[in-house]
C-alpha cells in the first residue's frame, strides 16, 4: 500500500497538469453537490412559507442558485473536454 501511494504521488508529480485538472473537476463536483442540497432546502422553505416578502426572497435565492448551478455544469463540461484533449 505504501508503494502504491508513492507511485500515485510520483504519477501526480510527473503529470502535474492532468492531476490539477482532475482536482479542479473534483472540487467543482463538490461545490455543485452543495448547491444542489441548498437548492432543495430553499425550495422546501419556499413551499412552507406564506409570507409574501419571504417568498420573494426565497424565489430570488432559488433563481440565483439555478444560474450558479448552470454555470457550474457548463464549467464542468468544459473541464472534462479539456481533460480528454
Amino acid at each position, binding site marked *: 500500500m505504501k508503494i502504491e501511494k508513492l507511485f500515485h504521488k510520483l504519477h501526480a508529480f510527473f503529470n502535474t497538469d492532468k492531476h490539477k485538472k482532475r482536482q479542479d473537476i473534483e472540487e*467543482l463536483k463538490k*461545490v455543485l453537490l452543495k448547491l444542489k442540497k*441548498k437548492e432543495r432546502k430553499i425550495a422546501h422553505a419556499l413551499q412552507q412559507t406564506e409570507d409574501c416578502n419571504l417568498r420573494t426572497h426565497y424565489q430570488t435565492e432559488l433563481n*440565483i442558485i439555478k*444560474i*450558479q448551478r448552470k454555470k*457550474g455544469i457548463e464549467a464542468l463540461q468544459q473541464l472534462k473536454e479539456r481533460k480528454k484533449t
Partner: protein
Amino acid sequence: MHKALLLIVILLLSYGFWLSDAFKGIAAGVSIFLFGMLSLEQGFKAFTGGVLERILQKTTNTTWKSFGFGFLSATLMQSSGLVSVITISFLSAGLLDLVAGIGIIFGSNLGTTTGGWLIAGLGLKVNIAAYAMPLLVFGVLCVFQSSKHLKGMGYLLTGLGFLLLGIHYMKDSFEHFQSTINLSKYAMPGVKGLLTYTAVGILATIIMQSSHATMLLTITAVSVHQITYDNALALVIGANIGTTITAIIASFGANIQGKRLAGSHLLVNLLTGLFVLLFVKDFAIIVDRISEYLGIAATDKAMKLATFHSLFNITAIILFFPFINQQVMFLEKIFIEKRPNIFKPKYLDASAMDFPETVVESVRLESIHLYENAIHIILRTFGLYKRDLQTNDSLKQLIEQNNQPIEYDIDASYEKRIKGIYSAIIAFISQAGFTWQMTQSSKLSWLREANKHLVEAIKDTKHLQKNWTRFRASSNQATINEYNKIAYQIALHIQKIENFRHEIESNELPLLSLDILKAAIKNDDMQMNRTIETLIRERKITPETGSSLINDCAYMRSIKKNLLKTAETLFLHGTGNGGVEQQLALNDTEINDIVQPVDTK
C-alpha cells in the same frame, strides 16, 4: 548592537588580532559560523510564502504538536533564534496563540542542542572541512540560479558549509592557541568560578547573538583543555540564559503577545539556570551516568558538555512544560495590554514585517479594525449604534422614532477614526519587502482595494448626509419616509454583512451566498426608484425632491456595494472553495437578469 558597544568590540578584537594569530583564527571561525547561520536563515525564508503558515496552522493546534514543530525546525535550521523570531512574528499577527508559542519555544530550545552534538560528535572528530567544501561549491552554484527555490537551496547548502568550515577553523585555531596562551590558568574553582563563567557565557551569547557560537567556543576550548570542565558547564548555563536575548530583541517590535512570549522564554531559562546552578554537582553526576549509558568515554568532555546542554533544556521542560497555562496566566498579569486605542493601528507591528504571511494577516486584521470604525461612522450618521443591529428592536422603528436632527460631524470622525489607520495601512503595505511574484502581494493588493472601498463608502455617506439632514426636517411625510427607508436599507445591509461575517464558519458556500446580497442591492434600488417615480406622478413629492432622492439612492447603492466588496475581501480569507466559487459567482448582468421589476401599484 549599540554603536558604542560595537566600537568597543571592534577595538577589543583588533587588539586581540594584534596580540595573537591564533585568536584571529578563532574569531574568524566564529564569524564564518555565524555567517553560515545567516545563510541558513536566508535559505529557509525562500521557502516561506504560504508554506510556513500552512505548516504552522496544522502543527500547532495542540501544545505537544507545537513542541514537535519547535524541535524539528530548530534542529533543521540549527537556530533557536530564528524559530523565536518566526514564532513572535506569527504570534503578533494572530496566527498563533501564546500557549502554542510557548510550546514552540520549549521545542526549539531542545532542538537547538543537537548543534552541540554535531560539533562535539562530528566537528571535532572528523575532517569537517572535507564535507564543507563541496557544500559551499554546490551552494554557491545554486545561489546564482534565478529560480527562487534553487537560490534558497543554495543558501541552505552554503549555510551548512560555512557552519562546518567555521567549526574547522575554530578547532584548528584553538590547537594553535594553546601553544601561545594557556587559558586554563584563569580557571576559577567553586561558586566564584560558577558565577563568573555563567556571566561570561551570558555576555558572550548576547554579543554574538548565538548560543550555538558560545557552545562552539566552549566545546572546542574544553576539548583542548583551555578551560576546565566545571567552568565549561557554567558557560553552557550562561549560554542558555543569554540566548533569550534574540527573543527579547524581536519582541521590541511586537505587540503584547510577542512581549509575553519573550518574557516566558527569559523566565523559564533564567529559573532553570538558577536551579541547575544550585544543583550543578548533581547535574554533573547525572551527565556522567548518561554518558556511561550512551557509551561516551569518561574523558570525552566535549560530548559530556553536549549531553549537559540537552539535559539543561530537558530540565526546563520537566519543570515548566506541565505548567504552560499557569505561565500564560502569570504573563497576562505582568504584561497587561493597554486598552487599545480605536483611533490608532492595533496590528501593524514591526515584528510582523519579517514574513509575507504575517504582513498579510496584520494588514487584514487592521483592515477589519478600519471596517469597524467605518461602520460606526456610517451608522452614527443615521443616529444608530452597532449594538442596535444586534437588538430585537426593529431597525425601522429605531430610525423612525429618532426624529430629532442628528448632528454628526463625519469629517471630524473621519480624521479621528479612519485617516490615521488608513495611512498606516498604506505605509505598512508599501514597506513590505517581497517580490511581486508572491501570492501574498496580490492579497495585499486586494486588501488595499478593500480599504479604498471603505473610504469611498464613508465619502458617499457624507454626500448623503446633507440631504438626509435637510429633508428629514421637512414637513412632507412622504419625503421623510423615503429618507428613513434609505437609512433603514443601509443599516439592514450592514446587519446582513455582520450576520454573514459571524456565520461564515458554518457557511458551506460563503462566496456564492454573497450573490443574494448583490441581488438585494439591485432589487432595493429598483424598488426605491419605482416608488420615487410613483410619488412624483401622484404629486406627493416635488420633482426637485424626487431628483435629490434618486441621487441619494445612487449613493445608497454605492455605499452598499462598497461595503459588500470590502466584506468579500476581509471575511472570506481562507474559507470556502475559493477559486471554484469565484467561477460560479454571478456577474452584474446575470444579477440584473434575475431581479424582477417590482409593480408598486
